[in-house]
């Protein structure tokens, strides 16, 4: 009877010890997984931060490109307005310029003017298509030196006051 009780007690003790060891192993395994998870989470956070930084940079680039495009459009519209004004300028007496009347009265003078303007306009298209600016165009600062058809394009150093 006493022997049997002793065996049972030993069995219980061994079972407890085995359970304890198994539990420690489980804790160790859990701990390793937790450490791995922690590393993965840190990496994920780091990657997310990089993505956010890149998105921020992209957004700033888009804003900047839009701003530059608007600025360019405004300056091109100004050139168009100047051209429109050349044809429809109103003089001091309130009369609108009529290029037809002028050409009828002084055909050779107007011919010379529009031929020069056409040559200038062709140069503007050349520049628009990628032709580099000449030294003369770059150095033009006076009204008499500029390409009056597209000063914003052909003469970047000219400031119209």
């Amino acid at each position, binding site marked *: 009877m006493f022997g049997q009780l002793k065996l049972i007690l030993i069995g219980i003790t061994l079972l407890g010890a085995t359970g304890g060891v198994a539990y420690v192993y489980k804790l160790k395994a859990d701990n390793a997984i937790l450490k791995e998870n922690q590393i993965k989470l840190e990496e994920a956070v780091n990657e997310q931060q990089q993505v956010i930084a890149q998105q921020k940079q992209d957004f700033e680039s888009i804003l900047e490109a839009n701003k530059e495009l608007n600025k*360019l459009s405004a300056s091109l519209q100004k050139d168009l307005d100047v051209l429109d004004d050349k044809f429809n300028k109103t003089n001091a007496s309130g009369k609108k310029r009529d*290029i*037809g009347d002028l050409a009828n009265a002084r*055909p050779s003078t107007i011919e010379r003017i529009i*031929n020069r303007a056409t*040559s200038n306009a062709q140069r503007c*298209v050349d520049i628009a*298509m990628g032709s580099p600016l000449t030294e003369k165009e770059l150095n033009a600062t006076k009204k008499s030196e500029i390409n009056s058809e597209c000063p914003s394009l052909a003469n970047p150093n000219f400031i119209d006051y």
Partner: protein
Amino acid sequence: MTISCSRGVDRIETVKTEVKRAPLNLDKPAVPKQEELNWIIINSENAEEVFAKLKEKGTDPVLFGLTDDEYEDLSMNFAQIRNYIIQQNFVLDKYKEYYESEEVNGTVEKR
């Protein structure tokens, strides 16, 4: 048989490597050479003189005409086409800069 039973099947591992798209890098077309144009203004008074000059030069005595309003419209159209080319070029450059810039250390470096 003993050997094949004792050794399990190896797991195949695949690795994904991101390969960046090669930039398109198309050259811009060469600037075409434009021919010089010469306008001739003709009215009821100088018509004969103009045609006589054309004959003198050996040019066909014929002119393709525009009224003053149409001349203005042509000038405006020409200017608008020019502006369109400029804007189109600008947009192309910006797209190239945006999509074909090189990524270095997480930051974008413009080419």
